[in-house]
């Protein structure tokens, strides 16, 4: 919010006469919809990128030929991300309950878990799980079957590593979500004589999930990009995700830049799709909590825009803006499932 003010302050003093012209321009500009202006900015950016791409003289034939092969990794990229987020959600829930617990064991274990997995790089964790775990277990003199069990396939090691790492970050999200539920709610549950599991299951968690789900979606989108790290663990072609496949075609033809651009494009498209659904999900979840009954559509729109301007970064604000009209007709949709 500070930036436009600084800009305006700079241009004002010397602009006695130009001010009139500036005003004219801004008045004319005000008539052009914001959406249209943003679209123009994007088009200009893409034109510049296209020019740079062309000037760099990349081997586009290679990229076209190999696109199919690299794209086949999409299944595994999504598979790894889905399996990992499921594991992460389970761990985050347990971790959060541990962090909120007064049991020293639960509190200590969850504290160690969050500290270690947030405090070390993901790639280091993946290497430790894949390569160090079997050696450690082997040296403990445990039965052979146990050792084989913990000699993880890179694909499985990737899921376990991503799940553990993201679970640790999401522990904080879950903890905040649970704590955001009003104290009166837990007191009421206690007053009704509910046990701890009953209270959590019937009162606290359902309300906490409204707060938890949007950032969890964000974590999922971030995780889809981090699945690329699994490519460093040495997966076989049949289980290779996008980045590993890009690495392989890069090595085969000595064309790393083209191959990685290809991979970058695919990750971007993938996350763009999921970001779109994420923003819709977020609005749907918050629908029941927006006071829309007495406000007019116009007021709602203004409210929504100021909210997205304050909270949205980059494309997020633009995305929210584009969907505002649909949101205005929101009240009828209230209560529909998702």
């Amino acid at each position, binding site marked *: 919010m500070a930036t436009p003010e600084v800009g305006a302050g700079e241009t004002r003093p010397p602009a006695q006469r130009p001010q009139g012209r500036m005003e004219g321009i801004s008045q004319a500009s005000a008539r052009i919809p914001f959406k249209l202006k943003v679209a123009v900015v994007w088009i200009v950016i893409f034109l510049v990128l296209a020019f740079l791409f062309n000037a760099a003289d990349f081997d586009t034939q290679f990229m076209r*030929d*190999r696109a199919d*092969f690299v794209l086949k990794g999409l299944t595994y990229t999504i598979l790894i991300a889905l399996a990992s987020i499921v*594991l992460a959600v*389970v*761990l985050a829930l*347990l*971790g959060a*309950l*541990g962090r909120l*617990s*007064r*049991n020293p*064991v*639960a509190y200590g*274990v*969850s504290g160690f*878990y969050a500290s270690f997995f947030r405090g070390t790089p993901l790639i280091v964790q993946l290497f430790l799980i894949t*390569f160090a775990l*079997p*050696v450690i277990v*082997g040296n403990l003199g445990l039965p*052979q079957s146990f*050792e*084989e*069990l*913990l*000699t*993880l*396939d*890179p*694909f*499985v090691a990737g*899921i*376990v590593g991503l*799940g*553990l790492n993201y679970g640790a970050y999401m522990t904080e999200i879950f903890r905040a979500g649970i704590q955001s539920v009003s104290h009166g709610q837990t007191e009421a549950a206690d007053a009704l004589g509910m*046990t*701890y*599991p009953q209270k959590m299951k019937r009162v606290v968690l359902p309300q906490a999930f409204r707060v938890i789900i949007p950032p969890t979606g964000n974590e999922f989108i971030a995780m889809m990009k981090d699945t690329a790290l699994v490519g*460093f*663990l*040495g*997966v*076989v*072609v*049949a*289980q290779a995700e996008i980045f590993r496949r890009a*690495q*392989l*075609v*890069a*090595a*085969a*033809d*000595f*064309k*790393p*830049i083209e191959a990685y651009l290809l991979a970058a494009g695919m990750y971007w498209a993938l996350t763009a799709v999921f970001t779109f659904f994420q923003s819709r999900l977020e609005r749907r979840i918050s629908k029941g909590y927006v006071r829309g009954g007495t406000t007019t559509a116009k007021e709602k729109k203004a409210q929504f825009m100021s909210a997205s301007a304050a909270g949205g970064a980059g494309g997020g604000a633009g995305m929210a803006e584009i969907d505002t009209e649909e949101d205005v007709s929101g009240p009828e949709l209230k209560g529909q499932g998702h």
Partner: protein
Amino acid sequence: MRKFRFRSILVLVAALSLVAAACGGDDEPTEPAGGATGGTTGTGACADADTAAGDLLAQICSDGVIRVSTDPAYPPQSSLNPETGEYEGFDIDVATEIANRLGATIEWETPKWEAIIAGNWQGRWDMSVGSMTVTAERAEVLDFTPAYYFTPASIAVSEGSEISSADGLDGMTVGVCSGCTYDFFLQGSLDIPGFEFPPPPAGITVKGYDTDTTAFQALESGQVDAVMSATPTIQAAIDKGRPMQLLGEPLFSEPLSVAFDKSSEVDQASLVEAVSGIVEEMHGDGTLSDMSMEWYGEDITIDPSTG
């Protein structure tokens, strides 16, 4: 009291779910790697092997499958053919022929190179046919067959570079794959029993990259002044249109062997012996020479130290 128990159980479940995740994965059927597989002859070395011995060779013979590690980031030794989805290269052909003569089919594993040279394979694969140089360090954790070929090593510079000889590298930066023999050579610490090397070029700074391919890219983007790699690898990159050129004659040749894990829990001695015999046989009947001609355009299977 009740709530405390519930929370402790939760933590326990957290620990168990990890183990469960590990089990779940292990039970998944391993998809066959898209690789060239040798046809089972049912004869070969396995015909003579004592399948009741319970050692690694006996296991391989009774399963009819040998698991071989390869790093498909090193054409023309091993790379992926995206058209067919199969691995191809000199090492792939050699491994396939070894498996054929054993009487087993190949299942490919693609661990990281560092994991192969470190030994302690935990039985994940049986054999490495990966153009591995027999350094003194590696010989401590791995068993080797006699060399199956001898790869020349060269330095390459950008196309049209003013550097014309190894002497011109003084003050320059050389890119190399981290932890590979060329890295050791440039740092002056390469030790291959029975082999002598010229001293590394004087006055250079060594920059390590994850693979040779990345080092080549660094040369192209001007981050290094030269790269060192296997001559065939550099030649393959030049053939694929990378703007680089070889700097003079190869600096040395190094022996490359098939490797086995010394720490294997199942006795691997008879397998090492059987494969060593096969390698000698392939030298003798010209199979290796033919493969070398096919992939490198010259015969580099003859020991340079003996002639």
